[in-house]
């Protein structure tokens, strides 16, 4: 049931302009679902980066957003309620 609603949400994200991949992991970094370029993503790195980002300012309550940009595309990371979402975007 939960997987079904995640898949539905990911389909919705994929319809946004420039989005070519989505990946969703649990708090341990295990990939729950992935689409497009997101299939190649490593969930552990995603949660690891977000944990380190949170550790920069543990006193700040809101969740950080990490954006990694390169010539070819960008990767946006955010976690919410123990679920981490990574969105791959092209630079077009």
């Amino acid at each position, binding site marked *: 049931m939960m997987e079904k609603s995640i898949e539905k949400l990911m389909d919705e994200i994929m319809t946004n302009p420039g989005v070519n991949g989505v990946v969703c992991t649990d708090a341990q970094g295990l990939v729950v679902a992935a689409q497009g*370029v997101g299939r190649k*993503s490593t969930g552990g790195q995603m949660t690891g980066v977000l944990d380190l980002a949170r550790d*920069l*300012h543990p006193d700040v309550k809101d969740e*950080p*957003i990490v954006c990694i*940009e390169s010539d*070819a*595309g960008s990767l946006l990371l955010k976690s919410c309620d123990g679920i981490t979402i990574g969105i791959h975007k092209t630079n077009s």
Partner: protein
Amino acid sequence: MMTQGIEQIPDSLGYLMLNEDGAVIASGGQLENGEKIANKLMHLIRIAIKMPTSDERASSFKKITVMWKTFMYVITFSNHRVFICKRQTNSPEPIAV
């Protein structure tokens, strides 16, 4: 010390310039002598630069941004140096009608 204009960035709260090993070369503002935050950021950078951003293998790295509601860290690389700028997030003011 030449900081290549990093201290002149608008809305900057502080800056750090590190070498490839993570040693602080220059610092200023809220990040002045920020060795501890520099170590934490280097740890994050080392993992983040290995992450694929697209399906193309040869995509050169450009920029990492770590954003919170009120401020952000903008990280980039040039000439074997790591440039980190802590900036205020400028939320646009609502238009009065």
